[in-house]
């Protein structure tokens, strides 16, 4: 493994156990499961951040999960609407490794520039493949220049496969239908979460990052999935000020 760590074997086992758990616990909130897998990916791959992008049926690529929703990670990933390490890996079906974004600036200058501004120095983009077709890409970002070794490649490929499994848990002829339904549903959920975040920010006069934090805290403390919480905020059932009650009672 490229990153030094005590007992890497145990770390891998722990992370993979968590991923397996996320896959089989009978949940219906795919977005939440993908977020779990992105955060587990950070641990598993000793990375600074992980983002999951998917081929949008309408064209281009969309972000479906990111290990940190409050930072500008999502915006960085979204610069890859047409080109970037991830679109490249999706188009070719091959891993794209950029060991040093300060050196390799020619291929994707905008991405490299913003990545460096955010403190990321290296990226490994891994294709997510289903039935021989690349349906998305896993973005693994590091804060140091990184020479990716065999273990990095194999572990990230393994995580990518498990993510595909999460996205397509269905057998038989209906699998393509379910993926399409789920993809468009997931992408719309994220737009919805953006609306809710903005609405909370505007109502309470706080930053979007703070607003997102309030939503996440409430979601966790009250065991309400973010998808459902966003709906309650935007349809007026739950007033944003009730999100701050969470803090007062702690």
């Amino acid at each position: 493994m490229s990153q030094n760590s005590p007992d890497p074997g145990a770390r891998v086992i722990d992370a993979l156990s968590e991923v397996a758990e996320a896959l089989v616990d009978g949940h219906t909130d795919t977005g939440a499961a993908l977020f779990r897998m992105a955060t587990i990916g950070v641990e598993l791959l000793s990375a600074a951040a992980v983002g999951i992008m998917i081929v949008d049926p309408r064209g281009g690529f969309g972000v479906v999960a990111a290990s940190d929703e409050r930072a500008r990670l999502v915006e960085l990933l979204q610069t890859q609407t047409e080109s970037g390490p991830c679109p490249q890996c999706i188009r070719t079906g091959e891993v794209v490794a950029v060991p040093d974004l300060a050196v390799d600036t020619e291929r994707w200058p905008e991405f490299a520039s913003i990545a460096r501004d955010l403190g990321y120095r290296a990226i490994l983009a891994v294709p997510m493949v289903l039935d021989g077709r690349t349906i998305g890409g896993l973005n693994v970002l590091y804060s140091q220049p990184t020479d990716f070794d065999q273990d990095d490649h194999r572990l990230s490929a393994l995580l990518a496969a498990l993510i595909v499994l999460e996205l397509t848990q269905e057998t038989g002829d209906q699998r393509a239908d379910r993926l399409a339904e789920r993809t468009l549903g997931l992408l719309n959920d994220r737009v919805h979460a953006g609306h809710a975040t903005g609405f909370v920010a505007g109502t309470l006069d706080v930053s979007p990052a703070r607003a997102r934090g309030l939503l996440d805290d409430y979601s966790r403390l009250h065991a309400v999935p973010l998808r459902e919480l966003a709906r309650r905020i935007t349809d007026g059932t739950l007033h944003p000020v009730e999100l701050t009650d969470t803090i007062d009672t702690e």
Partner: protein
Amino acid sequence: MEDRRRSLWHAVADATGSPGQHVWARSVCRNCVRALPGVDAVALTLRATETAQDLLGASDDWAAALEDQQYTLGEGPGVRAFRTGGPVLVDSLEIADQHWPGFTDAAQALGMGAAFAFPLQLGAIALGTLGLYRRTPGALAGRAMADAAALTDLITLALLRKEQAHTRGEDWLDGMGSYHEVNIATGMLAARLGVSLGDAFARLRGHAFLLERTVLELARDVIAHRIDVDDLGE
């Protein structure tokens, strides 16, 4: 990809009438039928709640009847799509029967083979559904699926337009690939102006056009408090 998207844009932009009118909806539905291989008929239904719906237009009476059955019975692919916020792809009557026995009986009597319902939505902004129907069973082919999803987006944006004046073609395309910051700015505007999200989104786009800036640029200004929200009030 851009050429394809432009041709789909024409299917919506070249429809007769103005977005929101019955004649416009019928025209859009007929254009969709032409644009989508493997689809026999299309209907556009506005929905305020799961039970309240209004057929805005359809390519023919057959599609209109299938939408009407869902209203009468309170169940079906369109109803479900609107409720769950995701497309509902029903490849056969057997599959439909697993979910909606009542609707399936009516659909069978009407000669339906497959149905594909797409919510007309942008995040929390939910306007209704686009119903695609076919007389024979089978999945919606990959290309048709992608095109249907894109058409749904374009129709949603058309319905959200504040100004009816048609502008440059690119204006229609700038809402695609929904940007995180635009969604956040939309929410902030809705909160600060006390308007609906649909209204806030329309104002954001409308003012971006007036100021000759991109929606994303304007959204960033809103988030960073570089713009006085009241300037976007009307």
